[in-house]
């Protein structure tokens, strides 16, 4: 069992996650019963249909969450990813390392949206534990990947992708 973190770590981590996400005006953030945060992307439709989840982990000590080469511990990744298996939308892990007064944020896909030659798919991350720095540009990258996946997943787009794949075969 992990040693207990100072009381403020969890509060600050969630607040940092919300602040990062809400710097964008097209993201509607809510707390969720199953995930830490549920984020809707506002595309101008009356009911936002594009959604992704954010799971938050934080520690005052780097070595409790990350091993060398800025990677999460493989067994921990396996555990987190297995919880994501049943999800039908993208899921990101935000990791906050907060020694003293500083905050080093990172992210990792747990359920990654991918658009490939055969169309869109969601891939559970079971093999790549490396985290990337989280900043405003990274949030933009995350949202773009998710938007691309939703675009490619629209019925007409999916039909076109399947037809194209048949032609290639």
């Amino acid at each position, binding site marked *: 069992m992990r040693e207990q973190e100072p*009381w*403020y770590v969890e*509060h*600050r981590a*969630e*607040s*940092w996650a*919300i*602040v990062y996400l*809400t710097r964008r*005006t*097209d*993201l*509607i*953030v*809510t707390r969720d019963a199953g995930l830490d945060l549920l984020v809707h992307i*506002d595309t*101008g439709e009356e009911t936002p249909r594009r959604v992704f989840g954010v799971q938050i982990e934080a520690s005052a000590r780097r070595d409790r969450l990350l091993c060398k080469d800025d990677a999460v511990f493989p067994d921990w990744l396996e555990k987190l990813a297995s919880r994501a298996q049943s999800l039908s939308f993208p899921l990101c892990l935000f990791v906050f390392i907060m020694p*003293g*007064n500083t905050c080093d944020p990172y992210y990792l896909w747990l359920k990654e949206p991918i658009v490939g030659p055969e169309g869109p798919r969601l891939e559970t991350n079971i093999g790549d534990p490396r985290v990337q720095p989280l900043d405003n540009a990274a949030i933009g990258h995350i949202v773009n990947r998710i938007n691309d996946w939703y675009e490619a997943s629209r019925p007409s787009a999916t039909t076109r992708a399947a037809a194209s794949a048949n032609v290639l075969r």
Partner: protein
Amino acid sequence: MANERDLIGMRGEAIITLRLTDGESPRFKPTFLGDKWSTIDFVVELDQPRSTATVVPFFFMSVRSTRSGGYTRTHGRLRVQVKEHEIRRLAAYPAPTYIVGVDEARERAFIVSANGENLGGLSSMTTRYPIDQSTREMLWSEVTGYWSRWHSGAMQSQLIDEEWR
């Protein structure tokens, strides 16, 4: 465009939590009350060593956020509004109570006393007290000072458990 009200609520709440818990050893424990309490948005407990605390100091905050309101031209006051009846209600609470204005664009928060010094409505608030280390020290000092003068003997309840040992 995302729902402005929802956006400001969570963002403002998160900014305040960060500003109050900045520093090497955060001593303020804010809890957001949301819609549960119409006038008060946060209750903030002061974190003291359990061995020495005979009373748990706390204070209330009422929050106003602005994403686009900006500042007044003449004195750089934050453009947030609090109506007179809300000011009077805040002053009526027998615990330290403050108004916090949040500039969401710059992720800053400012605090001012709502303990009855002024009872008129606010159309803008001073930015003299940003929630930084210096203001946190002042806040800690005045809230602990208030509660140090409080005594538990004032409360005598009839709802006693006679078998409680």
